[in-house]
């Protein structure tokens, strides 16, 4: 039972990191990415291989995040000229390309992935690490929103060309968003690889990207607290309601659809509505 709870905590925290990272790119900076799982996978593979080669755990984690961030930089750079719908499809393509590449690489274990990744921490240790990492990312996300960079991100999301007439190098800011967001995913990937001890390519497929996106969107794209809530909710939902597990994708899909249809700003938008209603009605 305790092991179950601890693993739930770890996966919840990993999802929080993934969702917050994607939110930096898509929510804050307005660059829709449909391939976030590729960076999660990059971090996982990099950290796993480094660990197996004998590097200390902490260094593997850090390098995993770094490699994912570097790939984020490359992808960001390659997609700089591509906007909106084109960007969404291109990032989706990056996800498929990652998968198609990894599956065929013998040195990455092909379809079978990488096994026997060292497990340096106890389950409790992993839970503490993951929660600590998630909290650090919440702090980073909140700071980012308040910083001038966050303000520029809002402007870029609203109107890139208008932002550049104010002297803002929009390309560099978009790259920052990509690097920060993908490094978060890479860090989460490193933890994931060491927790499970085994990684396979299919863990980082399009459905995983969409699942992360679902957390962001259900929580409320652009809102740190909303996304945090979305990630926790979508992690717990299949666990709390056992029957949900069998219909997981059906429900994820329906949830995405329903949120977009009736409340595009997600839980955060609903919370804002409730707050406003409470304020305006004499209590």
């Amino acid at each position, binding site marked *: 039972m305790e092991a179950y709870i601890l693993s739930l905590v770890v996966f919840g925290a990993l999802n929080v990191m993934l969702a917050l990272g994607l939110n930096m790119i*898509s929510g804050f900076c307005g660059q*829709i990415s*449909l391939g976030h799982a590729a960076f999660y996978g990059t971090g996982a593979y990099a950290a796993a291989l480094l660990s197996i080669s004998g590097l200390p755990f902490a260094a593997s984690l850090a390098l995993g995040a770094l490699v994912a961030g570097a790939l984020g930089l490359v992808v960001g750079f*390659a*997609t700089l*000229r*591509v*906007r*909106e*719908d*084109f960007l*969404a*499809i*291109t990032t*989706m*393509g*990056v996800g*498929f*390309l990652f*998968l*198609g*590449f990894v*599956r*065929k690489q013998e040195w990455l274990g092909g379809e079978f992935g990488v096994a026997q990744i060292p497990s340096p921490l106890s389950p409790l240790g992993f839970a503490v690490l993951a929660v600590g990492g998630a909290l650090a990312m919440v702090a980073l996300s909140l700071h980012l929103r308040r910083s001038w960079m966050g303000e520029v991100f809002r402007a870029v999301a609203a109107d890139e060309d208008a932002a550049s007439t104010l002297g803002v190098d929009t390309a560099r800011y978009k790259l920052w968003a990509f690097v920060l967001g993908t490094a978060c995913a890479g860090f989460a990937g490193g933890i994931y690889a060491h927790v499970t001890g085994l990684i396979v390519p299919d863990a980082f497929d*399009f*459905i995983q990207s*969409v699942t992360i*996106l*679902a957390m962001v*969107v259900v929580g409320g794209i652009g809102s740190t607290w909303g996304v945090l809530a979305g990630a926790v909710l979508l992690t717990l939902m299949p666990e709390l309601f056992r029957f949900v597990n*069998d*219909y*997981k*994708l*059906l429900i*994820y*899909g*329906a*949830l*995405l*659809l*329903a949120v*977009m*249809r009736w409340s*595009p700003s997600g839980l955060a938008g609903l919370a804002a509505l409730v707050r406003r209603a409470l304020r305006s009605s004499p209590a």
Partner: protein
Amino acid sequence: MFHLELLVVGLIWGAMYAMMALGLTLVYGLLRILHVAHAGVFALGAYAGVLTANATGSLWLAVPAAIGVAAAVGPLIYRFIYAPMLSRPPYVALIASIGLFIAMEDGFRLLFGPYGLPFDYNPWFVTTYSLGGISLNVVQIAMAVSTLVLAGAFGVFIAATRVGVAWRATVSDPQMAQSFGIDPVRVRYLNFAIGSAMAGAAGLLVGLLNNLVEPGMGAVVSYKGLAIIVLGGLGNVPGAVVASLILGVVESFGTVYLAAVLDRDAIAFAVLIAVLLIRPRGLFAPAR
């Protein structure tokens, strides 16, 4: 000979992609929506076809069933999902569409089982003809022929009929079209009906070709369809057809020559990304 065979097989797959991509690019051209759930309609057509064929024992009845069900569902998707979202930022409809597609896929799995449904009786699959030394079954021939017929009919429809002209006018300037008495909403329904009918037909043909209709059959086609319409220049109908054929051929050769580096389904995106790096608005995008 081997290369010729790769070329022909590639073109046939390309023809199937074109049937998918036409619907996608029609929707994009009219509404600026990346209609991912189009692949759900594709799979739905295949299911309608296989269920009809197995219930009645007639493959011929499966054709109208697949096309009819798909053509009915497409406009419903527009009415109940996209229409209320048109004023929102583009990602809203895109994410909703992904959600709908995933839900449909899982719905098929829950209703008809994870392993899919084979055709009880599929003579088209086993009847083969030899054309210039290349052996093709009836389904493959049907795929090529129906794409030619559909694309041709569509071209005539667009160029020569009243409704087609209305459609074109609505795509290029909705307000102008409206002032000439064209009802843009009706054009949209028509658009979804035609595009979905083609997807349903494509779905049935792919089901026949694999002799299996399975829940996930739409997924890869759907994402490739998006890659294709981006390659073709979003909303550009001839561009989408040419890009489909190119992709079919590249994949066909790629599975032989790139197999060590990339799997088949990633090739589309490798091509896509390479092209977008050079031409960020696709191969056949109009000038600014």
